[in-house]
């Protein structure tokens, strides 16, 4: 045994088709967690326009003069891509919440035999809630 062959990590993500429910739940939970952290930064950036508004800065939105905060929000909400991103944010947040509840049950040792089913359930529920939210998020915005 003078040397041995180390295959490294190749076999891991190359075989994503064979991942089980628990593995997918873990990957999605990590992914959505990072997405939510990323959103927090953009959230802070948008809300910080309230500082400018407090200083009395104004901007023009649709021919009207409004304060900087309202203007920023209205300007962003007027964009179609922002509305789509909001739907995505909702989907990410809902999955993270539902899977978080699932992980809470796993931590408490409740229903570990059904952990794969609860993952599928949280996926389906996320899908349903996301689809149901689309009319609310996409009203009053043109392409």
């Amino acid at each position: 045994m003078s040397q041995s062959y180390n295959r490294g990590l190749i076999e891991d993500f190359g075989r994503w088709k064979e991942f089980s429910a628990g593995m997918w739940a873990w990957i999605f939970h990590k992914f959505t967690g990072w997405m939510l952290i990323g959103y927090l930064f953009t959230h802070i950036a948008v809300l910080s326009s309230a500082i400018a508004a407090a200083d009395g800065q104004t901007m023009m939105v649709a021919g009207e003069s409004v304060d900087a905060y309202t203007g920023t929000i209205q300007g962003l909400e007027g964009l179609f891509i922002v509305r789509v991103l909001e739907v995505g944010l909702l989907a990410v947040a809902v999955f993270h919440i539902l899977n978080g509840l699932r992980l809470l049950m796993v931590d408490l040792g409740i229903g570990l035999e059904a952990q794969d089913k609860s993952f599928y359930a949280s996926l389906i529920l996320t899908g349903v809630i996301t689809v149901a939210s689309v009319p609310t998020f996409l009203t009053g915005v043109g392409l």
Partner: protein
Amino acid sequence: MSTQQQEPETDAEPEPESQETPTDQEMSGLSSPQQKRLQRKHEGAAERERAAAEDDLEGDTVHLKVFRFDPEVEGKQEPRFDDFHVPFERGMTVLDAVIYARDEFDSSLTFRHSCRQAICGSDAFFVNGRQRLGCKTQISELDQPVRVEPLPHQEVVKDLVVDMDHFYDQMHSVEPYFQQEDLPDGELEEQRQTRENREKVKMSTRCIWCGACMSSCNIAAGDNDYLGPAAINKAYRFAMDEREDEEIKEHRLRIVEQEHGVWRCQTQFSCTEVCPKDIPLTEHIQELKREAVKKNLKFW
């Protein structure tokens, strides 16, 4: 003739009943997972039989693709897959197939095996993208070609043989042996365990050290210091044993609650999925997490 045949039957009939009643009583006291497992086992057996009858692979050959690598031979240092066409027999396992390939085709094909009945834990392979025991996996259940590879995340020594040293080190680091200073009085007195306590640790005692769980664990792959599911399960087996003193249990919890202990587990359930002995590894790790928290909350 017929009376002679009937007599032993009537004789035999009450016997199994009387044998079964105590086990039945014991069974009803068992946790339902055991019954579920048995039911699943029966269903699986029935399905296998059906599959075997339908497929009727008999007379057919099995196409094996076996991972080959030998650092000591010039032409084999580059890993490759060898094809073997092994005649199928009913009830053939993956281990039977590779044994046939070695005996009949290529005697240099190297793999560990011993008992052939899922007790010794030597022949865990990576078969068709999953850690399985070669001797416990029916060829008829697998899609062909059957890819047989050494366990992932362990260094390959030769062909299907992987270096198990690290796995054994982790197993030993949780002190996998009974530690009890105070022995009961009386020379012939035994250290008795309650039935309930035995039931609690029963599944964890089934570990055969095959290393399939450790190999499947994504965290163990990335963190070499992580104890791994098998070692934590071993720690569970002794930490939950009520015959050991409270101080020893605390000592055991101190081992598993370290940075690379139970808290590395991210509940992916990979180990539980692949365990050939159906040990609920994730459940045991989670229970040790709760025990560790409870121990640390007790500040008085």
